[in-house]
């Protein structure tokens, strides 16, 4: 076992149970302690490979407020965050989801899009790149819906509409045809975009300690964070949720979010979408920055001693979704599977839909039924 996130389950008498997300990755925020604010802000993007922009913005936002200033969100920050989120969404959609269905990752196509995105240098090129992403969403997912004059009447027509689009639509159709994926009557609630002050007020002891960072909650309740939580009110996403196709709903929500990111790239700081970043002071000093990232809500808590970082904590989206008793463990258990191969496939689909930011391995063990 080498991946830092181990996802374990048992198959007993045709039912999946004993689902356990074992998270071995280190809490690396301590690397920033003892650094000056400027050093920490420069280090964060260098040490976090996937979401370096968001981590860097979080350091600057939290340190500004902790130092008595006011964080001002700008169009340039919004564009940078949106570009990073677009890359991460496309990574999953082009490299990882095809593999789940036995197809090759679309490496060349992704590399081509990545180069286009990396050429964004100003307002105009951001606007054009946003347009290219919107075109991709329309071709890949929505073409089948746009070409029909009426909404699909049932899930079969929904899947057909998806399939008439590109490879992402095809993946969605296959997920729907694989059957409902939500085995629980009371699913883990979705964490809607909330201001930083709500998280700050609910932190036990006014600070996210190591235990909280490993297993975050809001006033004791477990939540799911990510695109589904942000887009569950989209009518097509909601339709999949109602039919208990939560894995498919998460994939659809990711594409909806991709189009939102493209819109923010073209028209930053929109009045009709939730703010991507805000900061709240913490009860015993310091500040808490909240950033909506591709994978969900990211929290940075910081305390200063003069101009030096004296304490630091990061609560990442992966810890919300893969914490003990979290959405992966709850939704991953309690359903029928004909064999280990299918159980393994569906748990990998669930993990991919919940989108951990580290490598993971799924292991399903078949257990004999006791005669006793």
């Amino acid at each position: 076992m080498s991946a830092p996130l181990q996802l374990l389950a048992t198959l007993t008498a045709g039912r999946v149970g004993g689902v356990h997300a074992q998270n071995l990755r280190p809490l690396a925020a301590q690397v920033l302690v003892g650094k000056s604010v400027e050093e920490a802000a420069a280090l964060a993007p260098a040490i976090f490979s996937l979401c370096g922009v968001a981590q860097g913005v979080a350091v600057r936002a939290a340190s500004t407020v902790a130092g008595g200033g006011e964080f001002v969100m700008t169009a340039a920050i919004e564009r940078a965050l949106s570009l990073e989120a677009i890359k991460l969404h496309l990574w999953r959609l082009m490299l990882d989801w095809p593999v789940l269905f036995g197809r090759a990752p679309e490496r060349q196509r992704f590399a081509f899009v990545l180069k286009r995105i990396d050429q964004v240098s100003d307002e105009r090129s951001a606007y054009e790149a946003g347009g290219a992403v919107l075109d991709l969403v329309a071709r890949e997912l929505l073409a089948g819906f746009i070409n029909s004059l009426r909404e699909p009447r049932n899930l079969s027509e929904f899947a057909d509409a998806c399939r008439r689009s590109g490879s992402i639509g095809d993946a969605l159709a296959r997920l729907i045809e694989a059957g409902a994926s939500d085995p629980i009557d009371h699913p883990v609630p979705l964490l809607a975009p909330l201001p930083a002050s709500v998280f700050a007020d609910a932190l036990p002891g006014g600070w996210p300690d190591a235990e909280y960072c490993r297993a975050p909650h809001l006033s004791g309740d477990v939540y799911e964070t990510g695109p589904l939580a942000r887009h569950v009110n989209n009518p097509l996403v909601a339709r999949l949720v109602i039919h208990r196709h939560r894995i498919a709903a998460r994939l659809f929500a990711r594409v909806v979010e991709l189009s939102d990111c493209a819109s923010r790239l073209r028209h930053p700081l929109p009045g009709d979408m939730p703010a991507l970043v805000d900061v709240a002071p913490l009860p015993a000093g310091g500040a808490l920055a909240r950033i909506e990232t591709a994978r969900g809500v990211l929290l940075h808590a910081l305390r200063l001693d003069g101009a030096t970082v004296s304490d630091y904590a990061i609560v990442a989206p992966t810890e919300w979704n893969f914490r003990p008793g979290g959405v992966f463990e709850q939704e991953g258990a309690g359903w029928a599977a004909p064999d280990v191969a299918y159980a393994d496939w569906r748990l990998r689909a669930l993990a991919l839909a919940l989108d951990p930011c580290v490598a993971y391995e799924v292991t399903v063990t078949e257990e004999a039924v006791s005669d006793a």
Partner: protein
Amino acid sequence: MCLAIPARIVEKLDGGAARVDLGGVRKEISLALVDDAGIGDYVIVHVGYALSKLDPEEAAKTLALFEASGLDLAAIAEGNA
């Protein structure tokens, strides 16, 4: 929140792949997402892909930071690529 440990390319392989040294751990990765990466270059790796190239000075600074942090670099590297 995957950690960005610089990996040094030690061998180019067929099919746009390469072998890298990541904190003493050898891994095979894809170079499909970066241009003109050669032996000796440093790259940032995530789940089997080189994400970006890094100049040697920047790579040395980041590696020194990770080593000074007390984090188990080899264990992180093992799971990163």
